[in-house]
């Protein structure tokens, strides 16, 4: 039985019902457990769409025309309507491009507690989990702060903490460093390395691929297709540059 965290087979997706430009064309991808995978490609190449398919947001919340299969820990999620997004959130978590869109509560610790509370975790356990997660994300001092008063980097760490508290095995980051300064980027890289060490499977969508040269796999995408998927040292930089900018 296939137990890889993520396996995609022949995935096609179009946002429009008929005759629309396909956002994904025949995507095949396997992601191994405990690895860091970076999806690289120019804007509009389908990276974010692929992430949304992996999390079940497509086709469950965003509708369109979908063909193909998406397996998360061996469970096919693209065609099984009985699988709820909320049940997937225990296996795969998405940190969105804009943290503001992901922060739903009016205090930092409440936002981290939002997911576990929804899953009916007993309050003392929620408290322990929130304290632990805030400490991991270096946000303990801001526990009672209003999220709107946080800096960009802090907001992003809060968005990560909110997803981390759900305890997913796979974490997907959509352009996580695009709005951070160099110190924020370094901090984010440290977080990713720590998550990898903790055994999480990481998927990152990013233009600035050089930041993640330690990744196990780079997946180069163009016009909804995967051009190549391999270890960073096996992909010629010229190929990446030409696919990205031409």
């Amino acid at each position, binding site marked *: 039985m296939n137990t890889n965290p993520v396996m995609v087979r022949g995935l096609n997706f179009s946002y429009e019902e008929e005759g629309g430009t396909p956002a994904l064309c025949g995507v095949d991808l396997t992601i191994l457990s405990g690895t860091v995978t970076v999806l690289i490609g120019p804007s509009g190449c389908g990276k974010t769409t692929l992430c949304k398919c992996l999390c079940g947001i497509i086709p469950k919340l965003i509708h369109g025309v979908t063909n193909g299969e998406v397996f998360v820990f061996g469970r096919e999620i693209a065609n099984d309507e009985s699988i709820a*997004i909320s049940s997937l959130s225990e296996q795969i978590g998405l940190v969105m491009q804009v943290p503001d*869109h992901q922060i739903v509560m009016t*205090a930092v610790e409440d936002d981290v507690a*939002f*997911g576990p*509370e929804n899953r009916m975790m007993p309050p003392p356990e929620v408290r322990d989990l929130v304290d632990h997660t805030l400490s991991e994300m270096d946000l303990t001092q801001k526990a009672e702060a209003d999220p709107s008063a946080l800096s960009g980097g802090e907001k992003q760490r809060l968005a990560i903490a909110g*997803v981390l508290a759900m305890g997913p095995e796979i974490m997907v980051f959509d352009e996580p460093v695009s709005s951070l300064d160099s110190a924020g980027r370094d901090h984010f890289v440290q977080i990713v390395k720590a998550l990898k060490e903790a055994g999480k499977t990481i998927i990152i969508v990013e233009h600035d691929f050089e930041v993640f040269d330690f990744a196990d796999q780079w997946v180069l995408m163009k016009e909804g297709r995967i051009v190549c998927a391999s270890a960073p040292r096996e992909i010629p930089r010229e190929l990446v540059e030409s696919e990205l900018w031409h």
Partner: protein
Amino acid sequence: MTKKSRLGALDPRPKLMLMASASTACILANDLIYIASVLCMLIATLLIGGMDVRLVLRRAKAIFVLIAMLFVIQTFFSGLPYPGGLLLAAMLSLRLLVVVLAGLILMEGEVRDYLLALVQMKMPYTLAFMVVVGLHFLPILREEAVNIYCCMQLRGKDFKNMKLTEKVRAYTGICLPILVGALRRADEMSVAMETRGFRSRPSRTYMRQLKMRGADIALTILWPAILVVLYEVECVF
């Protein structure tokens, strides 16, 4: 972290009770002295509760001006002979003052506590959550409006020297992007909530619980009790 006032340190439930009871009593009552007494009690509560008077005046400045204007209009245009119009105007203005000041009490407290308070008062979580998220988004929408206003000015729109029709058109240009942005934000937020298990179970737990202390219980009982006693006294005399 800023130091909380006495009112700010109270449980939100007595404050909600105070606001509801004072506003209801003044809307139902038809006696100027009774309404004035409630207003005095309310001001005393605000002062004892450590509320910053200057902040209150600043926050509700526009409403106070509006109430003063209503007082003048009602006095001269009510059509009642003297002092009927004056009394009616005074009653209406004092009523509005009570409602506004009672509402300002709620500003002494944190939004997250009001969410918990509403839930502990048996309001469905989804409903309480919507109210709180709505309040949370107001300053964000305001900030967006200011940004768009500044951007339009930077691109040559001179709001000060516009005719009324042009102004209406220009402000429509501000409202539309805010509306579209709010819809997009709501869409993204609903996805984020869904992925974090919102409404995935028939119920949910709460990390924090509000607990009523002596002062909270006293305020919850005292305010409605005083309102009833005052009403009885007014009826006797």
